[in-house]
Protein backbone atom coordinates (compact mmCIF):
# COMPACT_ATOMS: atom_id res chain seq x y z
CA UNK A 1 0.00 0.00 0.00
CA UNK A 2 1.46 3.28 -1.10
CA UNK A 3 -0.13 6.27 0.59
CA UNK A 4 -0.99 6.79 4.24
CA UNK A 5 -3.77 4.77 5.84
CA UNK A 6 -5.54 7.91 6.94
CA UNK A 7 -4.99 11.40 5.66
CA UNK A 8 -6.74 14.51 7.03
CA UNK A 9 -6.53 17.88 5.30
CA UNK A 10 -7.92 21.07 6.83
CA UNK A 11 -10.62 19.11 8.62
CA UNK A 12 -13.10 21.25 10.53
CA UNK A 13 -16.12 20.35 12.62
CA UNK A 14 -18.58 22.85 13.98
CA UNK A 15 -21.64 21.87 15.97
CA UNK A 16 -24.68 24.11 16.16
CA UNK A 17 -26.29 24.52 19.52
CA UNK A 18 -29.30 26.80 19.89
CA UNK A 19 -28.48 28.63 16.67
CA UNK A 20 -24.93 29.26 17.87
CA UNK A 21 -21.94 27.69 16.15
CA UNK A 22 -19.72 25.62 18.44
CA UNK A 23 -16.43 25.10 16.65
CA UNK A 24 -14.86 21.89 17.94
CA UNK A 25 -12.16 21.19 15.34
CA UNK A 26 -10.84 24.09 13.27
CA UNK A 27 -7.99 23.05 10.98
CA UNK A 28 -6.77 19.52 11.43
CA UNK A 29 -4.24 18.06 9.01
CA UNK A 30 -2.17 14.97 9.57
CA UNK A 31 -1.47 11.47 8.26
CA UNK A 32 -1.60 8.09 9.88
CA UNK A 33 0.60 5.49 8.21
CA UNK A 34 -0.37 1.88 7.66
CA UNK A 35 0.44 -0.18 10.71
CA UNK A 36 0.58 2.84 13.01
CA UNK A 37 -0.79 2.72 16.54
CA UNK A 38 -1.74 6.29 17.41
CA UNK A 39 -2.99 7.56 20.75
CA UNK A 40 -5.10 10.73 20.83
CA UNK A 41 -4.95 12.59 24.12
CA UNK A 42 -6.27 15.86 25.44
CA UNK A 43 -8.49 17.42 28.04
CA UNK A 44 -12.16 16.57 28.23
CA UNK A 45 -14.19 18.35 25.60
CA UNK A 46 -11.17 18.97 23.39
CA UNK A 47 -12.73 17.06 20.50
CA UNK A 48 -10.91 13.71 20.66
CA UNK A 49 -14.05 11.63 20.19
CA UNK A 50 -15.24 13.97 17.48
CA UNK A 51 -12.00 13.51 15.55
CA UNK A 52 -12.09 9.74 15.99
CA UNK A 53 -15.72 9.62 14.80
CA UNK A 54 -14.80 11.57 11.67
CA UNK A 55 -11.94 9.18 10.86
CA UNK A 56 -14.25 6.19 11.47
CA UNK A 57 -16.95 7.60 9.21
CA UNK A 58 -19.77 7.83 11.75
CA UNK A 59 -19.74 11.63 11.65
CA UNK A 60 -19.32 14.09 8.81
CA UNK A 61 -16.86 17.01 8.84
CA UNK A 62 -18.10 20.53 8.13
CA UNK A 63 -14.95 21.19 6.12
CA UNK A 64 -11.81 19.59 4.75
CA UNK A 65 -11.03 16.18 3.39
CA UNK A 66 -10.66 12.81 5.06
CA UNK A 67 -9.08 10.01 3.03
CA UNK A 68 -8.93 6.50 4.33
CA UNK A 69 -7.06 4.10 2.06
CA UNK A 70 -7.44 6.79 -0.59
CA UNK A 71 -11.22 6.94 -0.32
CA UNK A 72 -12.58 10.41 0.35
CA UNK A 73 -15.10 9.31 2.95
CA UNK A 74 -16.54 12.79 3.43
CA UNK A 75 -17.95 12.46 -0.07
CA UNK A 76 -19.67 9.13 0.41
CA UNK A 77 -23.42 9.06 0.82
CA UNK A 78 -24.73 7.93 4.17
CA UNK A 79 -25.66 4.54 2.82
CA UNK A 80 -22.31 4.07 1.06
CA UNK A 81 -20.56 5.13 4.24
CA UNK A 82 -22.37 2.41 6.20
CA UNK A 83 -21.19 -0.22 3.71
CA UNK A 84 -17.70 1.25 3.84
CA UNK A 85 -17.62 1.05 7.65
CA UNK A 86 -18.80 -2.55 7.59
CA UNK A 87 -15.83 -3.48 5.39
CA UNK A 88 -13.05 -1.22 6.62
CA UNK A 89 -13.50 -0.15 10.24
CA UNK A 90 -13.53 -2.04 13.53
CA UNK A 91 -15.04 -0.23 16.50
CA UNK A 92 -14.12 -0.56 20.17
CA UNK A 93 -16.20 1.54 22.58
CA UNK A 94 -15.62 2.57 26.18
CA UNK A 95 -18.77 0.77 27.34
CA UNK A 96 -18.32 -2.21 24.97
CA UNK A 97 -21.78 -1.71 23.38
CA UNK A 98 -22.48 -5.42 23.05
CA UNK A 99 -26.03 -6.61 22.39
CA UNK A 100 -27.22 -7.91 25.79
CA UNK A 101 -29.58 -10.49 24.25
CA UNK A 102 -26.86 -12.06 22.12
CA UNK A 103 -24.20 -14.50 23.28
CA UNK A 104 -20.51 -13.69 22.88
CA UNK A 105 -20.40 -15.72 19.68
CA UNK A 106 -23.55 -14.09 18.27
CA UNK A 107 -22.21 -10.64 19.12
CA UNK A 108 -19.01 -11.34 17.23
CA UNK A 109 -21.00 -12.81 14.35
CA UNK A 110 -23.11 -9.65 14.06
CA UNK A 111 -20.88 -7.62 11.68
CA UNK A 112 -20.54 -10.72 9.49
CA UNK A 113 -24.28 -10.48 8.77
CA UNK A 114 -23.25 -7.66 6.43
CA UNK A 115 -20.90 -9.89 4.45
CA UNK A 116 -21.64 -12.61 1.94
CA UNK A 117 -20.42 -15.34 4.30
CA UNK A 118 -22.83 -18.18 4.95
CA UNK A 119 -23.97 -19.25 8.40
CA UNK A 120 -21.30 -21.88 8.89
CA UNK A 121 -18.51 -19.56 7.73
CA UNK A 122 -19.78 -16.84 10.05
CA UNK A 123 -19.68 -19.23 12.99
CA UNK A 124 -16.15 -20.29 12.13
CA UNK A 125 -14.87 -16.75 11.77
CA UNK A 126 -16.52 -15.65 15.02
CA UNK A 127 -15.18 -18.69 16.85
CA UNK A 128 -11.67 -17.92 15.59
CA UNK A 129 -11.88 -14.27 16.63
CA UNK A 130 -13.01 -15.26 20.12
CA UNK A 131 -10.13 -17.74 20.36
CA UNK A 132 -7.76 -14.95 19.40
CA UNK A 133 -8.92 -12.82 22.35
CA UNK A 134 -8.74 -15.81 24.68
CA UNK A 135 -12.48 -16.39 25.13
CA UNK A 136 -12.89 -19.72 23.36
CA UNK A 137 -14.56 -21.12 26.46
CA UNK A 138 -17.03 -18.28 26.75
CA UNK A 139 -18.71 -18.37 23.35
CA UNK A 140 -22.13 -19.22 24.77
CA UNK A 141 -22.07 -16.60 27.52
CA UNK A 142 -24.24 -13.50 27.47
CA UNK A 143 -22.56 -10.12 28.14
CA UNK A 144 -24.02 -9.90 31.67
CA UNK A 145 -22.33 -13.21 32.46
CA UNK A 146 -18.92 -11.74 31.61
CA UNK A 147 -16.61 -9.31 33.43
CA UNK A 148 -15.96 -5.86 32.01
CA UNK A 149 -12.57 -6.94 30.68
CA UNK A 150 -14.07 -10.03 29.07
CA UNK A 151 -16.84 -7.98 27.50
CA UNK A 152 -14.27 -5.63 26.02
CA UNK A 153 -12.41 -8.64 24.62
CA UNK A 154 -15.65 -9.79 22.98
CA UNK A 155 -15.97 -6.28 21.54
CA UNK A 156 -12.41 -6.51 20.21
CA UNK A 157 -13.21 -9.86 18.63
CA UNK A 158 -16.25 -8.20 17.02
CA UNK A 159 -14.00 -5.37 15.78
CA UNK A 160 -11.49 -7.68 14.10
CA UNK A 161 -13.78 -10.42 12.80
CA UNK A 162 -14.37 -8.66 9.48
CA UNK A 163 -10.61 -8.13 9.09
CA UNK A 164 -10.78 -4.32 8.79
CA UNK A 165 -7.69 -2.25 8.02
CA UNK A 166 -8.50 0.40 10.59
CA UNK A 167 -9.45 -0.09 14.23
CA UNK A 168 -10.78 2.84 16.24
CA UNK A 169 -11.05 2.67 20.01
CA UNK A 170 -12.60 5.42 22.14
CA UNK A 171 -11.24 5.03 25.66
CA UNK A 172 -11.21 1.24 25.46
CA UNK A 173 -9.82 0.94 28.98
CA UNK A 174 -11.79 3.82 30.47
CA UNK A 175 -14.20 1.57 32.32
CA UNK A 176 -11.77 -1.15 33.38
CA UNK A 177 -9.57 -1.88 36.37
CA UNK A 178 -5.83 -1.71 35.83
CA UNK A 179 -5.32 -5.44 35.29
CA UNK A 180 -8.11 -5.77 32.73
CA UNK A 181 -6.94 -2.58 31.07
CA UNK A 182 -3.47 -4.09 30.75
CA UNK A 183 -4.89 -7.18 29.07
CA UNK A 184 -6.86 -5.06 26.62
CA UNK A 185 -3.79 -2.99 25.77
CA UNK A 186 -1.76 -6.18 25.26
CA UNK A 187 -4.39 -7.34 22.86
CA UNK A 188 -4.37 -4.08 20.89
CA UNK A 189 -0.59 -4.34 20.81
CA UNK A 190 -0.86 -7.79 19.26
CA UNK A 191 -3.46 -6.70 16.72
CA UNK A 192 -1.09 -3.95 15.70
CA UNK A 193 2.16 -5.93 15.88
CA UNK A 194 1.09 -9.38 14.68
CA UNK A 195 -1.80 -8.56 12.39
CA UNK A 196 -0.59 -5.16 11.21
CA UNK A 197 -3.84 -3.36 12.02
CA UNK A 198 -3.76 0.43 11.99
CA UNK A 199 -5.14 1.55 15.34
CA UNK A 200 -6.34 4.95 16.49
CA UNK A 201 -7.09 5.06 20.20
CA UNK A 202 -8.49 7.93 22.26
CA UNK A 203 -7.41 7.78 25.87
CA UNK A 204 -7.07 9.82 29.02
CA UNK A 205 -4.68 7.36 30.49
CA UNK A 206 -0.99 8.21 30.04
CA UNK A 207 -0.06 4.58 30.66
CA UNK A 208 -2.40 3.44 27.92
CA UNK A 209 -1.06 6.07 25.55
CA UNK A 210 2.48 4.87 26.15
CA UNK A 211 1.57 1.54 24.56
CA UNK A 212 1.02 3.32 21.26
CA UNK A 213 3.70 4.18 18.68
CA UNK A 214 2.82 7.83 18.76
CA UNK A 215 0.74 10.28 20.70
CA UNK A 216 -1.04 13.39 19.49
CA UNK A 217 -2.53 15.94 21.80
CA UNK A 218 -5.67 17.86 21.02
CA UNK A 219 -6.33 21.18 22.63
CA UNK A 220 -8.89 23.83 21.78
CA UNK A 221 -9.66 22.31 18.43
CA UNK A 222 -6.05 22.07 17.35
CA UNK A 223 -3.64 19.25 17.21
CA UNK A 224 -0.31 19.36 19.00
CA UNK A 225 2.27 20.68 16.61
CA UNK A 226 4.31 17.55 16.49
CA UNK A 227 3.85 13.88 16.79
CA UNK A 228 5.33 12.83 20.07
CA UNK A 229 7.31 9.69 19.63
CA UNK A 230 7.35 7.44 22.62
CA UNK A 231 9.98 4.90 23.43
CA UNK A 232 8.06 1.76 22.85
CA UNK A 233 8.67 -0.99 25.39
CA UNK A 234 8.89 -4.57 24.21
CA UNK A 235 5.57 -6.24 24.47
CA UNK A 236 6.82 -9.29 26.32
CA UNK A 237 8.08 -7.14 29.21
CA UNK A 238 4.60 -5.84 29.77
CA UNK A 239 2.87 -9.15 29.65
CA UNK A 240 1.70 -10.35 32.97
CA UNK A 241 2.77 -7.06 34.53
CA UNK A 242 -0.34 -5.06 33.55
Amino acid at each position, binding site marked *: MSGPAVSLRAVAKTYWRGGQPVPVLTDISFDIQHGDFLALMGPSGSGKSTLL*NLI*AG*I*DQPTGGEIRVDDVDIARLS*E*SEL*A*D*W*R*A*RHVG*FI*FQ*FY*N*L*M*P*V*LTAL*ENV*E*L*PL*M*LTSLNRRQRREHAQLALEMVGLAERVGHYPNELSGGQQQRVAIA*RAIVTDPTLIVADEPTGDLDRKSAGEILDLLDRLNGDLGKTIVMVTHDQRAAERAHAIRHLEKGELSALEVAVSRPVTSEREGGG
Partner: protein
Amino acid sequence: MKFTNIPFHYIWRNLLTRKLTTLLTAGGMALVVFVFAAVLMLEAGLRETLISTGQPDNVVVIRKSAQTEVQSGVQRREAAIVESEPNIAVDAQGDKLISKETVVLISQPKKSTGRKSNIVVRGTGAKGLALRPQVVLTEGRLFRPGSSEVIVGRSIRDGFHGAAIGDSLRFAQRDWTVVGVFDAGKTGFSSEVWGDSEQMLQAFRRTAYSAVVFKLYDPSSFEAMKTRLEADPRLTLELKTETRFYADQSEALATFIKILGTVLSIIFSIGAIIGAMITMYAAVANRVGEIGALRALGFQRRAIMAAFLLESLLLSLTGGVVGLLAASTMQWFQLSTTNWQTFSELAFSFSLTSGITVRVLLFSLAMGFIGGFLPAARAARMNIVDALREG
Protein backbone atom coordinates in the same frame (compact mmCIF):
# COMPACT_ATOMS: atom_id res chain seq x y z
CA MET B 1 -34.19 -10.16 -0.57
CA LYS B 2 -34.26 -10.23 3.20
CA PHE B 3 -36.50 -8.01 5.30
CA THR B 4 -33.53 -7.05 7.50
CA ASN B 5 -30.01 -8.42 7.98
CA ILE B 6 -30.28 -7.97 11.73
CA PRO B 7 -30.58 -11.51 13.05
CA PHE B 8 -34.04 -12.76 13.92
CA HIS B 9 -32.97 -14.03 17.34
CA TYR B 10 -31.90 -10.50 18.26
CA ILE B 11 -35.45 -9.31 17.59
CA TRP B 12 -37.18 -12.29 19.17
CA ARG B 13 -35.07 -12.36 22.35
CA ASN B 14 -35.64 -8.67 22.94
CA LEU B 15 -39.35 -9.44 23.09
CA LEU B 16 -38.76 -12.33 25.48
CA THR B 17 -36.42 -10.27 27.67
CA ARG B 18 -39.17 -7.82 28.61
CA LYS B 19 -41.64 -10.55 29.47
CA LEU B 20 -44.15 -8.49 31.40
CA THR B 21 -44.38 -5.62 28.91
CA THR B 22 -44.61 -8.04 26.01
CA LEU B 23 -47.27 -10.04 27.80
CA LEU B 24 -49.37 -7.00 28.67
CA THR B 25 -49.11 -5.44 25.23
CA ALA B 26 -49.80 -8.69 23.40
CA GLY B 27 -52.60 -9.37 25.90
CA GLY B 28 -54.27 -6.06 25.05
CA MET B 29 -54.02 -6.86 21.37
CA ALA B 30 -55.34 -10.37 22.01
CA LEU B 31 -58.45 -8.88 23.61
CA VAL B 32 -59.15 -6.68 20.61
CA VAL B 33 -58.49 -9.54 18.22
CA PHE B 34 -60.80 -11.71 20.30
CA VAL B 35 -63.64 -9.20 19.94
CA PHE B 36 -63.01 -8.75 16.23
CA ALA B 37 -62.82 -12.50 15.59
CA ALA B 38 -65.92 -13.19 17.70
CA VAL B 39 -67.95 -10.66 15.73
CA LEU B 40 -66.89 -12.09 12.38
CA MET B 41 -67.60 -15.61 13.64
CA LEU B 42 -71.02 -14.49 14.84
CA GLU B 43 -71.86 -13.03 11.47
CA ALA B 44 -70.62 -16.14 9.67
CA GLY B 45 -72.56 -18.40 12.05
CA LEU B 46 -75.76 -16.45 11.51
CA ARG B 47 -75.43 -16.60 7.75
CA GLU B 48 -74.66 -20.32 7.83
CA THR B 49 -77.75 -21.07 9.93
CA LEU B 50 -80.10 -19.11 7.74
CA ILE B 51 -78.61 -20.49 4.58
CA SER B 52 -79.00 -24.05 5.90
CA THR B 53 -82.70 -23.35 6.41
CA GLY B 54 -83.08 -23.48 2.67
CA GLN B 55 -82.43 -26.25 0.16
CA PRO B 56 -80.35 -25.19 -2.82
CA ASP B 57 -82.63 -26.94 -5.35
CA ASN B 58 -85.85 -25.60 -3.87
CA VAL B 59 -87.34 -22.45 -5.32
CA VAL B 60 -89.43 -19.94 -3.39
CA VAL B 61 -91.85 -17.92 -5.49
CA ILE B 62 -93.15 -14.72 -3.90
CA ARG B 63 -94.68 -11.49 -5.08
CA LYS B 64 -92.24 -9.16 -6.73
CA SER B 65 -90.34 -6.97 -4.21
CA ALA B 66 -91.81 -8.78 -1.20
CA GLN B 67 -89.02 -9.42 1.28
CA THR B 68 -90.73 -12.21 3.18
CA GLU B 69 -93.49 -14.74 2.71
CA VAL B 70 -95.59 -12.85 5.27
CA GLN B 71 -95.61 -9.74 3.08
CA SER B 72 -96.12 -11.68 -0.12
CA GLY B 73 -99.23 -12.64 -2.06
CA VAL B 74 -99.47 -15.15 -4.92
CA GLN B 75 -102.84 -15.31 -6.67
CA ARG B 76 -104.38 -18.76 -7.30
CA ARG B 77 -104.20 -18.11 -11.04
CA GLU B 78 -100.48 -17.27 -10.76
CA ALA B 79 -99.86 -20.35 -8.63
CA ALA B 80 -101.54 -22.48 -11.28
CA ILE B 81 -99.25 -21.09 -14.00
CA VAL B 82 -96.20 -21.86 -11.89
CA GLU B 83 -97.55 -25.34 -11.18
CA SER B 84 -97.85 -26.02 -14.89
CA GLU B 85 -94.11 -25.51 -15.38
CA PRO B 86 -92.34 -28.62 -16.65
CA ASN B 87 -89.14 -28.09 -14.68
CA ILE B 88 -90.58 -29.33 -11.37
CA ALA B 89 -89.33 -32.52 -9.77
CA VAL B 90 -91.76 -35.37 -9.15
CA ASP B 91 -91.80 -37.96 -6.37
CA ALA B 92 -92.08 -41.76 -6.60
CA GLN B 93 -95.85 -41.52 -7.08
CA GLY B 94 -95.42 -39.14 -9.98
CA ASP B 95 -96.74 -36.17 -8.02
CA LYS B 96 -95.10 -32.80 -8.53
CA LEU B 97 -93.07 -31.63 -5.53
CA ILE B 98 -94.76 -28.27 -5.11
CA SER B 99 -96.48 -26.61 -2.19
CA LYS B 100 -98.72 -23.57 -2.31
CA GLU B 101 -98.28 -22.01 1.07
CA THR B 102 -100.10 -19.55 3.29
CA VAL B 103 -97.86 -17.84 5.83
CA VAL B 104 -99.40 -15.73 8.58
CA LEU B 105 -98.06 -14.28 11.80
CA ILE B 106 -100.07 -14.93 14.95
CA SER B 107 -99.52 -13.96 18.53
CA GLN B 108 -99.47 -16.46 21.38
CA PRO B 109 -98.46 -16.22 25.06
CA LYS B 110 -95.00 -17.54 25.85
CA LYS B 111 -94.59 -20.05 28.65
CA SER B 112 -91.62 -18.25 30.16
CA THR B 113 -92.99 -14.72 30.37
CA GLY B 114 -96.72 -15.10 29.76
CA ARG B 115 -96.40 -12.30 27.27
CA LYS B 116 -97.50 -12.66 23.70
CA SER B 117 -94.92 -13.38 21.06
CA ASN B 118 -95.04 -13.85 17.30
CA ILE B 119 -95.26 -17.28 15.72
CA VAL B 120 -95.25 -18.13 12.04
CA VAL B 121 -98.25 -20.22 10.95
CA ARG B 122 -97.57 -22.00 7.68
CA GLY B 123 -100.30 -23.62 5.66
CA THR B 124 -98.65 -26.12 3.34
CA GLY B 125 -99.76 -28.42 0.60
CA ALA B 126 -99.47 -32.18 0.71
CA LYS B 127 -95.85 -32.00 -0.40
CA GLY B 128 -94.80 -29.38 2.14
CA LEU B 129 -92.92 -31.89 4.24
CA ALA B 130 -91.41 -33.79 1.34
CA LEU B 131 -89.91 -30.52 0.06
CA ARG B 132 -88.05 -30.02 3.33
CA PRO B 133 -86.06 -33.12 4.26
CA GLN B 134 -84.64 -31.25 7.26
CA VAL B 135 -88.12 -31.23 8.82
CA VAL B 136 -88.79 -34.51 10.64
CA LEU B 137 -91.98 -35.50 12.46
CA THR B 138 -90.84 -36.68 15.90
CA GLU B 139 -94.13 -37.18 17.74
CA GLY B 140 -97.75 -37.86 16.77
CA ARG B 141 -98.85 -37.74 13.15
CA LEU B 142 -99.32 -35.34 10.27
CA PHE B 143 -102.35 -33.05 10.04
CA ARG B 144 -105.11 -34.44 7.80
CA PRO B 145 -105.79 -32.26 4.74
CA GLY B 146 -109.09 -30.39 5.01
CA SER B 147 -109.11 -30.53 8.82
CA SER B 148 -108.40 -28.04 11.61
CA GLU B 149 -105.36 -30.01 12.69
CA VAL B 150 -101.82 -28.64 13.03
CA ILE B 151 -98.35 -29.86 13.78
CA VAL B 152 -95.89 -27.65 15.71
CA GLY B 153 -92.15 -27.15 15.70
CA ARG B 154 -90.11 -28.28 18.68
CA SER B 155 -89.42 -24.72 19.86
CA ILE B 156 -93.14 -23.90 19.75
CA ARG B 157 -94.07 -26.99 21.77
CA ASP B 158 -91.40 -26.07 24.37
CA GLY B 159 -91.98 -22.33 24.40
CA PHE B 160 -95.72 -21.78 24.19
CA HIS B 161 -98.85 -22.76 26.13
CA GLY B 162 -101.36 -25.14 24.59
CA ALA B 163 -98.91 -26.49 22.02
CA ALA B 164 -98.52 -30.09 23.21
CA ILE B 165 -100.15 -33.01 21.40
CA GLY B 166 -103.87 -33.11 22.23
CA ASP B 167 -103.93 -29.41 23.16
CA SER B 168 -105.55 -26.89 20.91
CA LEU B 169 -104.33 -23.50 19.78
CA ARG B 170 -106.86 -20.75 19.19
CA PHE B 171 -106.31 -18.37 16.30
CA ALA B 172 -108.33 -17.03 13.37
CA GLN B 173 -111.55 -17.72 15.31
CA ARG B 174 -110.95 -21.43 15.34
CA ASP B 175 -109.50 -24.05 17.64
CA TRP B 176 -106.70 -26.01 16.02
CA THR B 177 -105.85 -29.41 17.45
CA VAL B 178 -102.17 -30.21 17.79
CA VAL B 179 -101.62 -33.71 16.41
CA GLY B 180 -97.86 -33.82 15.91
CA VAL B 181 -94.49 -32.25 16.75
CA PHE B 182 -91.64 -31.84 14.26
CA ASP B 183 -87.95 -31.12 14.55
CA ALA B 184 -86.23 -28.97 11.97
CA GLY B 185 -82.82 -28.83 13.60
CA LYS B 186 -81.27 -25.37 13.74
CA THR B 187 -83.40 -24.01 10.91
CA GLY B 188 -86.09 -21.40 11.22
CA PHE B 189 -88.88 -23.99 10.66
CA SER B 190 -88.50 -25.23 14.26
CA SER B 191 -90.34 -22.11 15.34
CA GLU B 192 -93.41 -22.58 13.12
CA VAL B 193 -96.91 -24.06 13.27
CA TRP B 194 -97.90 -26.05 10.18
CA GLY B 195 -101.38 -26.86 8.94
CA ASP B 196 -103.35 -27.33 5.72
CA SER B 197 -102.91 -24.47 3.28
CA GLU B 198 -106.51 -24.29 2.06
CA GLN B 199 -107.82 -24.33 5.66
CA MET B 200 -105.53 -21.46 6.54
CA LEU B 201 -106.71 -19.46 3.54
CA GLN B 202 -110.32 -19.89 4.66
CA ALA B 203 -109.71 -19.25 8.33
CA PHE B 204 -107.73 -16.09 7.68
CA ARG B 205 -110.19 -15.04 4.95
CA ARG B 206 -107.51 -14.79 2.31
CA THR B 207 -107.82 -15.21 -1.40
CA ALA B 208 -104.15 -15.44 -2.26
CA TYR B 209 -101.39 -17.76 -1.15
CA SER B 210 -98.25 -16.29 0.36
CA ALA B 211 -95.73 -18.28 -1.61
CA VAL B 212 -95.22 -21.26 -3.84
CA VAL B 213 -92.33 -23.58 -3.08
CA PHE B 214 -91.17 -26.28 -5.45
CA LYS B 215 -88.22 -28.53 -6.08
CA LEU B 216 -86.34 -28.07 -9.34
CA TYR B 217 -86.16 -31.00 -11.70
CA ASP B 218 -83.02 -29.57 -13.28
CA PRO B 219 -81.32 -27.08 -10.92
CA SER B 220 -79.00 -25.82 -13.68
CA SER B 221 -81.93 -24.36 -15.60
CA PHE B 222 -83.05 -22.20 -12.69
CA GLU B 223 -81.68 -18.94 -14.08
CA ALA B 224 -83.43 -19.39 -17.42
CA MET B 225 -86.68 -20.26 -15.70
CA LYS B 226 -86.38 -17.28 -13.36
CA THR B 227 -85.78 -14.90 -16.26
CA ARG B 228 -88.70 -16.28 -18.21
CA LEU B 229 -91.27 -16.34 -15.41
CA GLU B 230 -90.29 -12.96 -14.03
CA ALA B 231 -90.77 -11.48 -17.52
CA ASP B 232 -94.14 -13.23 -17.98
CA PRO B 233 -96.78 -10.42 -18.24
CA ARG B 234 -99.39 -12.58 -16.50
CA LEU B 235 -97.27 -12.81 -13.36
CA THR B 236 -95.90 -10.32 -10.86
CA LEU B 237 -93.69 -12.86 -9.18
CA GLU B 238 -90.11 -13.24 -8.15
CA LEU B 239 -88.17 -16.52 -8.00
CA LYS B 240 -85.36 -17.20 -5.58
CA THR B 241 -83.60 -20.38 -4.63
CA GLU B 242 -84.58 -21.22 -1.09
CA THR B 243 -80.94 -20.83 0.01
CA ARG B 244 -80.79 -17.32 -1.45
CA PHE B 245 -84.19 -16.48 0.01
CA TYR B 246 -83.11 -17.19 3.60
CA ALA B 247 -79.67 -15.70 3.05
CA ASP B 248 -81.36 -12.46 2.02
CA GLN B 249 -83.40 -12.56 5.21
CA SER B 250 -80.24 -12.81 7.32
CA GLU B 251 -78.54 -10.04 5.41
CA ALA B 252 -79.75 -7.10 7.49
CA LEU B 253 -78.94 -8.63 10.87
CA ALA B 254 -75.61 -10.07 9.70
CA THR B 255 -74.62 -6.73 8.22
CA PHE B 256 -75.63 -4.92 11.38
CA ILE B 257 -73.57 -7.26 13.56
CA LYS B 258 -70.63 -6.91 11.24
CA ILE B 259 -70.70 -3.12 11.09
CA LEU B 260 -71.23 -2.69 14.82
CA GLY B 261 -68.50 -5.22 15.57
CA THR B 262 -66.05 -3.71 13.13
CA VAL B 263 -66.62 -0.22 14.48
CA LEU B 264 -66.13 -1.47 18.05
CA SER B 265 -63.01 -3.39 17.04
CA ILE B 266 -61.53 -0.35 15.38
CA ILE B 267 -62.18 1.79 18.44
CA PHE B 268 -60.64 -0.85 20.73
CA SER B 269 -57.76 -1.32 18.34
CA ILE B 270 -56.79 2.33 18.76
CA GLY B 271 -56.13 1.52 22.41
CA ALA B 272 -54.11 -1.54 21.49
CA ILE B 273 -52.15 0.40 18.87
CA ILE B 274 -51.30 3.09 21.42
CA GLY B 275 -50.22 0.33 23.80
CA ALA B 276 -47.95 -1.16 21.16
CA MET B 277 -46.61 2.29 20.35
CA ILE B 278 -45.74 3.02 23.99
CA THR B 279 -44.09 -0.38 24.32
CA MET B 280 -42.06 0.10 21.16
CA TYR B 281 -41.05 3.67 22.04
CA ALA B 282 -39.80 2.33 25.37
CA ALA B 283 -37.95 -0.46 23.57
CA VAL B 284 -36.26 2.07 21.30
CA ALA B 285 -35.40 4.36 24.23
CA ASN B 286 -33.85 1.46 26.14
CA ARG B 287 -31.70 0.41 23.23
CA VAL B 288 -30.33 3.74 21.98
CA GLY B 289 -26.76 2.58 22.59
CA GLU B 290 -27.39 -0.68 20.77
CA ILE B 291 -28.89 1.19 17.83
CA GLY B 292 -25.82 3.45 17.70
CA ALA B 293 -23.50 0.44 17.77
CA LEU B 294 -25.47 -1.39 15.07
CA ARG B 295 -25.32 1.65 12.82
CA ALA B 296 -21.58 2.09 13.49
CA LEU B 297 -21.03 -1.57 12.55
CA GLY B 298 -22.55 -0.75 9.18
CA PHE B 299 -26.24 -1.66 9.47
CA GLN B 300 -28.31 0.71 7.37
CA ARG B 301 -31.11 2.89 8.68
CA ARG B 302 -33.64 0.74 6.85
CA ALA B 303 -32.31 -2.40 8.58
CA ILE B 304 -32.90 -0.75 11.96
CA MET B 305 -36.35 0.37 10.83
CA ALA B 306 -37.20 -3.12 9.64
CA ALA B 307 -35.90 -4.75 12.82
CA PHE B 308 -38.08 -2.64 15.10
CA LEU B 309 -41.07 -2.99 12.80
CA LEU B 310 -40.59 -6.73 12.78
CA GLU B 311 -40.43 -6.70 16.57
CA SER B 312 -43.74 -4.86 16.70
CA LEU B 313 -45.26 -7.19 14.10
CA LEU B 314 -44.16 -10.23 16.09
CA LEU B 315 -45.64 -8.70 19.21
CA SER B 316 -48.99 -8.12 17.53
CA LEU B 317 -48.97 -11.47 15.78
CA THR B 318 -48.50 -13.13 19.17
CA GLY B 319 -51.51 -11.19 20.42
CA GLY B 320 -53.41 -12.09 17.27
CA VAL B 321 -52.76 -15.81 17.61
CA VAL B 322 -53.71 -15.82 21.30
CA GLY B 323 -56.87 -13.81 20.60
CA LEU B 324 -57.80 -16.10 17.73
CA LEU B 325 -57.26 -19.23 19.83
CA ALA B 326 -59.47 -17.77 22.56
CA ALA B 327 -62.12 -16.87 19.98
CA SER B 328 -62.03 -20.35 18.50
CA THR B 329 -63.33 -21.74 21.80
CA MET B 330 -66.50 -19.71 21.20
CA GLN B 331 -67.52 -22.28 18.61
CA TRP B 332 -68.79 -24.41 21.48
CA PHE B 333 -71.41 -21.84 22.47
CA GLN B 334 -74.93 -21.54 21.07
CA LEU B 335 -76.80 -18.28 20.76
CA SER B 336 -80.34 -17.37 19.90
CA THR B 337 -81.83 -14.23 18.53
CA THR B 338 -84.99 -13.02 16.94
CA ASN B 339 -85.08 -13.15 13.18
CA TRP B 340 -85.91 -9.56 12.35
CA GLN B 341 -87.93 -10.39 9.29
CA THR B 342 -90.14 -13.14 10.63
CA PHE B 343 -89.67 -12.38 14.33
CA SER B 344 -89.30 -16.05 15.02
CA GLU B 345 -86.58 -17.28 17.29
CA LEU B 346 -83.36 -18.31 15.62
CA ALA B 347 -80.64 -20.45 17.18
CA PHE B 348 -77.09 -20.24 15.82
CA SER B 349 -73.43 -20.55 16.82
CA PHE B 350 -70.07 -18.87 16.18
CA SER B 351 -68.31 -20.15 13.13
CA LEU B 352 -64.57 -19.84 12.51
CA THR B 353 -63.72 -19.96 8.81
CA SER B 354 -60.31 -19.84 7.16
CA GLY B 355 -61.24 -16.46 5.69
CA ILE B 356 -61.87 -15.13 9.19
CA THR B 357 -58.53 -16.54 10.39
CA VAL B 358 -56.68 -14.72 7.62
CA ARG B 359 -58.57 -11.46 8.17
CA VAL B 360 -58.04 -11.52 11.92
CA LEU B 361 -54.30 -12.19 11.62
CA LEU B 362 -53.96 -9.41 9.04
CA PHE B 363 -55.87 -7.14 11.40
CA SER B 364 -53.45 -7.89 14.24
CA LEU B 365 -50.45 -7.36 11.93
CA ALA B 366 -51.94 -4.03 10.88
CA MET B 367 -52.14 -3.00 14.55
CA GLY B 368 -48.50 -3.97 15.01
CA PHE B 369 -47.46 -2.09 11.90
CA ILE B 370 -49.28 1.10 12.81
CA GLY B 371 -48.15 0.94 16.45
CA GLY B 372 -44.56 0.12 15.54
CA PHE B 373 -44.09 2.49 12.64
CA LEU B 374 -43.30 5.74 14.48
CA PRO B 375 -41.03 4.14 17.09
CA ALA B 376 -39.17 2.23 14.36
CA ALA B 377 -38.83 5.44 12.36
CA ARG B 378 -37.41 7.18 15.41
CA ALA B 379 -34.88 4.37 15.85
CA ALA B 380 -33.91 4.59 12.18
CA ARG B 381 -33.61 8.40 12.21
CA MET B 382 -31.15 8.49 15.12
CA ASN B 383 -27.81 10.12 14.61
CA ILE B 384 -25.07 7.56 15.23
CA VAL B 385 -22.85 9.77 17.37
CA ASP B 386 -25.75 11.01 19.49
CA ALA B 387 -27.02 7.47 19.96
CA LEU B 388 -23.59 6.26 21.06
CA ARG B 389 -23.26 9.18 23.51
CA GLU B 390 -26.71 8.64 25.01
CA GLY B 391 -26.46 4.88 25.25
